[in-house]
């Protein structure tokens, strides 16, 4: 496609903070910074949740989060979701009515028990429920397969595209300049300090850049000479037609907790991730594989996801699938995001690598980055999330 692009006369010349990436993380960061009266520019190479934030399971989920920093981040971010629901004008369909994990194979039990033990020790216990209770909560489930489950009352679903739109709307009211279809070409660093950001529309003078570029965080990192170990992993899902309400909560299969079942290197991993959107469509997943930056779904994925869901819920058999989609999520070696300042490049702040949990963790990350930049104290200590942590093997 040939596109004529002209320099928009109102393109900003400078800003206090330039945020690269307009997904949930970047948009939340912009909003919380703007609330603290920072002069912010948000740059997005596409338009409004065009990448991972625009196609995912849409869950706000903490059930499977491990005790420790992982869970801390999730709980904190959930509280931010609640805050935003009250603060933002545009409803983003956040419904926290509880989340369910189902156990449908014996080999899952020890992993689930171990997780529950950890959570109990950590002070965030989860409730184990029996098969009958599971079926009461979600009658569509296959009574012949359910052995039991885990219930988490604080979990739920949301609409991340509406969330991003809602955050952006408020941000613009607070003075944030949001520029879509704008690609960052380079970041100027001089004597270890960020000086400006160059885009295909012009250069912005700034001494603070937030890298909220998701799967492209590594690409942005290179611009300031650092290695950011974020790589895309592709997750696919199916969307069905709208049907009368039949699923009431997000449902995950406990096979997710069993390492062997989640897919080996180069293979196709899959597990049950199912919910019904406010619009009535069933969002059924999921499968994952290493596909680079290829968004196409493959036959194997589509059929595998269908099989997994039919096994769990046979009465869905006549519901028509109207499309599949896939996105790549920013994978980090230890499944934790990379947040905070970076050694050697003053003014370069990481806010990427949220793996498959960006929707849940995004608002929290935005708040934490804003706290970091405004007063240095963060609600969740960020030591364990820095780029230099040993698990990332980056010197």
């Amino acid at each position: 496609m040939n596109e004529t692009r002209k320099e928009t006369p109102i393109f900003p010349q400078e800003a206090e903070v330039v945020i690269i990436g307009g997904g949930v993380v970047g948009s939340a960061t912009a909003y919380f910074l703007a609330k603290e009266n920072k002069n912010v520019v948000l740059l997005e190479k596409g338009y409004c949740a065009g990448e991972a934030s625009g196609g995912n399971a849409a869950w706000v989920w903490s059930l499977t989060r491990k005790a420790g920093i992982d869970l801390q981040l999730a709980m904190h971010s959930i509280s931010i979701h609640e805050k935003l629901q009250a603060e933002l004008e545009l409803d983003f369909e956040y419904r926290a009515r509880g989340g369910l994990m189902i156990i449908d194979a014996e080999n899952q039990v020890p992993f689930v028990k171990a997780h529950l033990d950890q959570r109990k020790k950590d002070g965030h216990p989860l409730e184990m429920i029996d098969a009958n209770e599971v079926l009461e909560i979600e009658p569509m489930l296959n009574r012949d397969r359910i052995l039991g489950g885990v219930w988490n009352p604080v979990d739920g679903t949301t609409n991340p595209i509406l969330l991003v739109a809602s955050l952006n709307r408020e941000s613009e009211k607070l003075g944030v300049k949001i520029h879509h279809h704008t690609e960052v070409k380079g970041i100027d660093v001089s004597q270890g300090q960020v000086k400006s950001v160059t885009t295909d529309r012009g250069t912005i003078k700034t001494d603070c850049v937030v890298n909220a570029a998701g799967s492209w965080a590594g690409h942005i990192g290179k611009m300031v000479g650092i290695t950011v170990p974020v790589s895309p992993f592709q997750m696919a899902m199916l969307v069905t037609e709208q049907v009368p309400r039949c699923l009431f909560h997000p449902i995950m299969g406990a096979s997710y907790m069993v390492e062997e079942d989640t897919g080996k290197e180069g293979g196709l991993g899959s597990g049950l991730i199912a919910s019904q959107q406010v619009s009535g469509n069933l969002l059924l997943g999921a499968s994952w594989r290493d596909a680079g930056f290829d968004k196409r779904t493959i036959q194997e994925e589509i059929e595998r996801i269908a099989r997994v869901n039919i096994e769990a819920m046979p009465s869905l058999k006549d519901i028509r699938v109207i499309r599949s989609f896939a996105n790549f999520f920013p994978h980090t070696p230890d499944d934790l995001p990379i947040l905070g300042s970076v050694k050697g490049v003053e003014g370069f702040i990481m806010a990427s690598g949220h793996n498959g949990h960006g929707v849940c963790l995004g608002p929290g990350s935005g708040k934490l980055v804003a706290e970091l930049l405004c007063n240095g104290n963060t609600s969740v200590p960020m030591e364990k999330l820095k780029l230099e942590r040993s698990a990332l093997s980056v010197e």
Partner: protein
Amino acid sequence: MEKAELAIIGGGPGGISAAVAAAESGVNVTILDENARIGGQIFRQLEKGFTLTNPKAMGRDYQKGVDLFRQFKQVESRINYLNHATVWGIFDHHRIAYERNRKSKTIEYKNLLIASGAYDRPVPFPGWTLPGVLTAGGAQNLVKNQRILPGKKFLLAGTGPLQLVLAHQLIQAGADIAAILEVGDVKGSWLKLMQGMWGNWGYAGDGLQYLQTIRKAGVPIMRNHIIARANGNQNVEKAVIARVDKDWRVIHNTRKSLNVDTVCLGYGLVTSTELTRLAQCDHEYDNGLGGYVPVRSETMETTQKGIFAVGDGAGVAGSQVALAEGRIAGIAASQALGHAPGVGQKKTLAELQKKLTRHHRLRKVLDEISRPRPGLYELAEDETIICRCEDVTFKQIKTLIQKEGINAKDIKRTTRVGMGSCGGRMCGPILIELLRNLGSQISGQPEGLNVRPPVKPIPLGVLAGAENNE
């Protein structure tokens, strides 16, 4: 997993003539046809239960179809014809996934020919979603094949000679037509043009007959007129028509109300390119040919080696072109697969190419008259539905359309346009035209919506039970 030397998707004139040509050369052909029997839309055969008591009742088109069916029958034993087969995906490694009789299967092909056809152009205007507003193709299907008149008092609105064919069929069936609106800027030579066109199709005599039927029935053909609105409670009750300028824009103070219960919209066809796009063929945009069309060589090969595209699905040009293109592609595919050309096929290829050139030259003039002008997409008001599946109104997208750099995918994601059961087939062509007309600073071709399998709705249970090679 099933295998085919040449897999053909589509059982209309393009697909069938390709199948015949390939089978004649000894190629192992499999046809995947959504319908019950071959013929596609234009040569659609009557369902079991209906018997024609007057063979001429199906019209001249049908006769051409009969010739094709005869050719097909001669090589039928060499063709694997799968009816009721809905292709839902085309994947790497030469694989097609399809559903048939509630089972999902996979075919591995060596060469592929896509003849997916076209469908009526959706045009949004206030009231267009009311029951009683049909496409011309839909009305024609009901009259010709289901033998039912969808209403009592008709308004035909659109452009091009096919409206007159529909009008003739309706009148023969006893319909009362209030008017035929031709929105195009046609001059007096129009009728001669039509006759020339029909002459090219071999319908010379029929062409005159259609006009005579229409005149005799006292049905006015109103040139430079458009339908601007359909009114009614549960059904169409009235239509508001208006005069337009050469850009098809409504001229002030020319609106008139007509009492009708059925409106047939005949604004030409748009290409079904879901499959060629899924197969990653390059496309270019030409709204005189029905929108996106795959880029093809002289032998109908797309930019994907071994994948051919013919017929209306590769550029709306009618059944005669489809027949010729199909044959050319069938011969070319056979050669690519290493089969010796059948007796007389080399000579045929040159003749076919000539025939095609002639067709295209003649069509160009008519296509130019009927090519959509900006006014066609300026009928929508704030509350007019743009996405029928998701009930997204024009108001919800009109500001977005004008945003710099915006594309159809952005609009889809943020407004739900294109997220419904039809897979963006209705709203996609509308969005593209709106972006062209109202969008800011986009030169070249606006991108359309994405296509992701399954390209037609498939029950979850069918996908789950897929018979695969894994």
